[in-house]
């Protein structure tokens, strides 16, 4: 007699695919391949299909996804930043200055802004690497606001006027695909990085920094490296947006660039990068879609935020991941 019972799909697959790849059906391969491939395919197709307004939304969504991932990475090393705007603004200004004032072409000034921006941010924050928890956060919150006021007060780099007339991207596809590829690259690179030995050491600093020091690892040097990596990602976003708008000014240090990445990562789920990515892809388009309703936009938006945080404190990604792993199928069993 044949009977049916439920069986979790992932059990056998996990055992077999964790180490050696010996999946024996197309369905099982699909089960493993869909989660990483879906975002790739969707992101590659979206720029072709979206109307031009939503293409701009996609671009800014990707920027916030990148900022959220760079925030998530720092949190994984035990540094809670409230100032991704610092990274963003520094990158934006370097790109603006090197393009407009030094006359560098766009394909040279973006890489320069990325690397130099990351280095400058790491150097700016090096003196406070010894601070932990909320003290570190306070400094990161204040630094971009301070730089903004310095620009305003000194009139440097165009002061309140900013720098305009910066070379735009040749066309909107270049723009969209550059940021899409950058986002996907960052997503998979970050996910890979945290599983390497180097990534484990960074994570260990968050867990117990004294124990890491006691085996001869200079945790301040490691933290500075993490700041550099995160800073590069943030500075790239700034440099990119500068070329999208053709303008760089004080708004580059705006609080938005600090807060929105943070809420994306929290709503999406911290520690996985996919969560930050997902969070940005929910929050940014949502905020755009709500534009139509006028004044209540922020209220509704905030309501969504609170709802997600209360209902799914672990983050949307972790919830989906858990449900995905709990998928069951009916199998026939001999009785």
């Amino acid at each position: 007699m044949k009977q049916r019972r439920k069986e979790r799909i992932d059990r056998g697959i996990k055992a077999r695919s964790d180490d050696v790849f010996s999946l024996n059906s197309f369905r099982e391969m699909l089960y493993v391949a869909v989660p990483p491939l879906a975002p790739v395919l969707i992101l590659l197709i979206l720029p072709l299909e979206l109307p031009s307004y939503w293409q701009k939304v996609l671009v800014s969504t990707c920027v916030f996804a990148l900022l959220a991932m760079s925030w998530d990475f720092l949190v994984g090393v035990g540094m809670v930043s409230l100032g991704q705007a610092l990274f963003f603004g520094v990158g934006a200004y370097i790109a603006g200055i090197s393009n407009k004032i030094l006359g560098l072409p766009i394909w040279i000034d973006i890489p320069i802004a990325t690397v130099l921006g990351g280095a400058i941010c790491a150097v700016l924050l090096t003196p406070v690497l010894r601070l932990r928890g909320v003290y570190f956060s306070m400094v990161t919150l204040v630094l971009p606001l301070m730089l903004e006021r310095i620009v305003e007060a000194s009139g440097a780099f165009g002061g309140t006027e900013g720098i305009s007339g910066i070379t735009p991207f040749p066309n909107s596809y270049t723009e969209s695909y550059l940021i899409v590829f950058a986002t996907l690259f960052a997503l998979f690179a970050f996910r890979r990085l945290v599983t390497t030995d180097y990534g484990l050491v960074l994570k260990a600093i968050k867990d117990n920094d004294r124990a890491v020091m006691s085996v001869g690892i200079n945790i301040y040097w490691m933290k500075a490296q993490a700041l550099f990596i995160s800073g590069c990602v943030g500075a790239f976003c700034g440099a990119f947006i500068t070329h999208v708008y053709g303008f760089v000014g004080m708004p580059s240090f705006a609080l938005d660039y600090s807060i929105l990445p943070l809420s994306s990562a929290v709503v999406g789920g911290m520690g996985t990068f996919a969560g930050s990515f997902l969070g940005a892809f929910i929050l940014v388009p949502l905020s755009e879609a709500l534009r139509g309703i006028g004044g209540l936009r922020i209220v509704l938006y905030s309501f969504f935020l609170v709802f997600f945080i209360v209902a799914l404190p672990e983050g949307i990604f972790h919830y989906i991941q858990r449900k995905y792993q709990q998928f069951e199928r009916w199998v026939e069993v001999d009785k």
Partner: protein
Amino acid sequence: MTDQNNKTNLILRAQNLSKSFGGVKAVVSVSFDLHEGELLGVIGPNGSGKTTLVNLITGFLKPDRGKIEYKGQDITGWTPYRIARIGIARTFQMIRPFAELPSFKNLIIPLYSPRVKALSGGKYGDLDAVAKDYLEEVGFERESSVTYKPAGSLPHGYLKRLELAKCLALRADLIILDELFSGLSIAELASIVPIIEKLVSEGKTVIMIEHRLRELFRIADRVVVLNYGSVIADGIPSEIMEKPEVRKAYLGSE
């Protein structure tokens, strides 16, 4: 090495170490010598400055006064990671493993240390396999579930061994164990003591901060007794408890 021409093979020398926290004098003018291959026990009542002494030696605290020499080199005021790199490893009294990582992955951290990299010829190689070797050395059964479990879920006895394995992985010459025996059952002790004896027989130098005197006295070569931050006795285990000042510190005055 500087100690080649030194007949006594002095590895560590503390001279007049002092440290106060506010008005509290935690360590007062402590001096002692340690020779290579020796197992030194440091005992004393609660609050007598034992852990502060460890923190001073390993650089987690800077002494107010005094000097620490390791293999003839003045290491006073060095950062903890610099001190660890020249071969001084320690465990912590409050054990906090890297809880989410599997046990063997905990050893990746010491194995990633610049010291180990330099000792193994500038290459990191496959650290996972090396990590499992060290775990086996401290009594984790090869390929058993404890090797792969998150370190946060390990029983107390295994956590202590994991700490010990971290010191081994660092290939330290001087190992400082801060209350390694505390909270262990007799059976767990019986399995962990031989590991320490083996370390010493291999030529490592060990300092043990202990409250479990009976077990310590069985393996220690020499014992230093601290009370109110000062050394009140320094001698071989069989004689140390006979000294009146030690009895007084432990049992109170008669």
